[in-house]
């Protein structure tokens, strides 16, 4: 049996939410901000989103063009590797399926890259089939720069470091390549339900 911490009681979570909280996580009501460096400030007039790599033809959208794409409103639970979980977060964004619509590729992985230099890697099948968005609104308001605005990747089924803030493009690649946190001790995949936080988990 696991070690018992003498005298520890803890706060019991309400059972309705219990099944929605992955192992090692706790529920928060606020929205913590974590990042490795200063917050990039990108005026939307200068914002672009690109699709490049192992595809027939690179694609590029300006903010105005991007905002003309069909959008979805989704409500999701999100899980940060630093242990906080936030339930029922509301986002507006463009599905990555929409972005990849009509794009021919044999690539199996993507690298999401951001203003400021952040990167993260994912299997292509983890950002398709209704699992990922490029989100520009949180809770009905334009996404704040501290939370990744003008737009961030949103991939709620993985730890939230995969939901790259300040995203500016997706690169389709043939091999899985570690991004920023993946090169700094964090797991290549990041499934919160298998508690894949760090290398070797």
């Amino acid at each position, binding site marked *: 049996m*696991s*070690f*018992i*911490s*003498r*005298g*520890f*009681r*803890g*706060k*019991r979570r309400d059972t309705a939410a219990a099944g929605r909280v992955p*192992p*090692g996580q*706790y*529920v*928060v*009501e*606020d929205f*913590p*901000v*974590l*990042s*490795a*460096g*200063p*917050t*990039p400030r990108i005026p939307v007039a200068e914002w672009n989103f690109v699709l490049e790599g192992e595809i027939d033809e690179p694609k590029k959208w300006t903010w105005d063009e991007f905002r003309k794409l069909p959008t979805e409103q989704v409500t999701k639970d999100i899980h940060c590797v*630093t*242990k*906080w979980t936030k339930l029922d977060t509301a986002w507006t964004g463009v599905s990555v399926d929409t972005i990849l619509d009509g794009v021919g590729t044999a690539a199996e992985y993507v690298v999401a890259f951001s203003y*400021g*230099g952040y990167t993260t890697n994912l299997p292509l099948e983890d950002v398709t089939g209704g699992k990922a968005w490029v989100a520009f609104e949180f809770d009905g308001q334009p996404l704040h720069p*501290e939370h990744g605005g003008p737009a961030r990747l949103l991939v709620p089924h993985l730890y939230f470091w995969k939901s790259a803030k300040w995203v500016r493009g997706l690169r389709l690649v043939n091999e899985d390549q570690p991004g*920023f*946190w993946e*090169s*700094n*001790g964090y797991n290549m995949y990041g499934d919160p339900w298998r508690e894949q*936080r*760090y*290398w*070797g*988990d």
Partner: protein
Amino acid sequence: MSSRGPRLLEWKLGTVAELVQETPRVASLVLDVPEWHGHLAGQHVDVRLTADDGYQAQRSYSIASAPEDPRLAITVERLDDGEVSPYLVGEVRKGDKVELRGPIGGYFVWRATDDRPLLLIAGGSGIAPLMAMIRHRAAASSTTPTRLLYSSRSYDDVIYRAELERLASARDGLSVSHTLTRTQPSGWNGYSRRIDGVMLAEVAWPKERMPVIYICGPTPMVEAAASLLVDMGYDASSIKTERFGATGG
């Protein structure tokens, strides 16, 4: 010690060798951890508590001790509505065991072999990982020009106050500036306000010296300091941040 290369981070049981009350709300737990493989200054550990019915809670804490120190220290601020911190600061006694794993994090780290001017900016308990860097610097007998700007609410809230004073008086290139944002003792001649551009201009290394910069503390303070430094012309990639979100968990 290399921080690279996949290694399964196993849970280990550390024994509390010493408890140090740093300030009224903050204590350090000094742990003996068997088979600890070492760490870099700036890294953290995950602590896991288990109740007798199997309920578990985990939180991350920066390692405050230098890599050279055989014992591992974490410094914990007790949050009144917290789940883990009131246990670690309040219930835990010398001789108790604490389950932890680490070290974690390869980015917010500083090695004494880096001789670029070092600027450390701390808010509250955010001093912990920066103290690991300062202690590592001392243990390595480094004379790297280092400036610490440390923001606290009051004089009694300054963590490691005496040790910082002693280290700064060694005149080996470390200088410490304090700002007390809520109350100041009579006769105080340090800063008495939140970190702002004027203060940074007075304390920070000029950008021409191309310092490496580490900022740690509550998110609003880190955001403000980082943004100010970028606006002042410091290279964004030279600024590393670690944000403590005291989210009441």
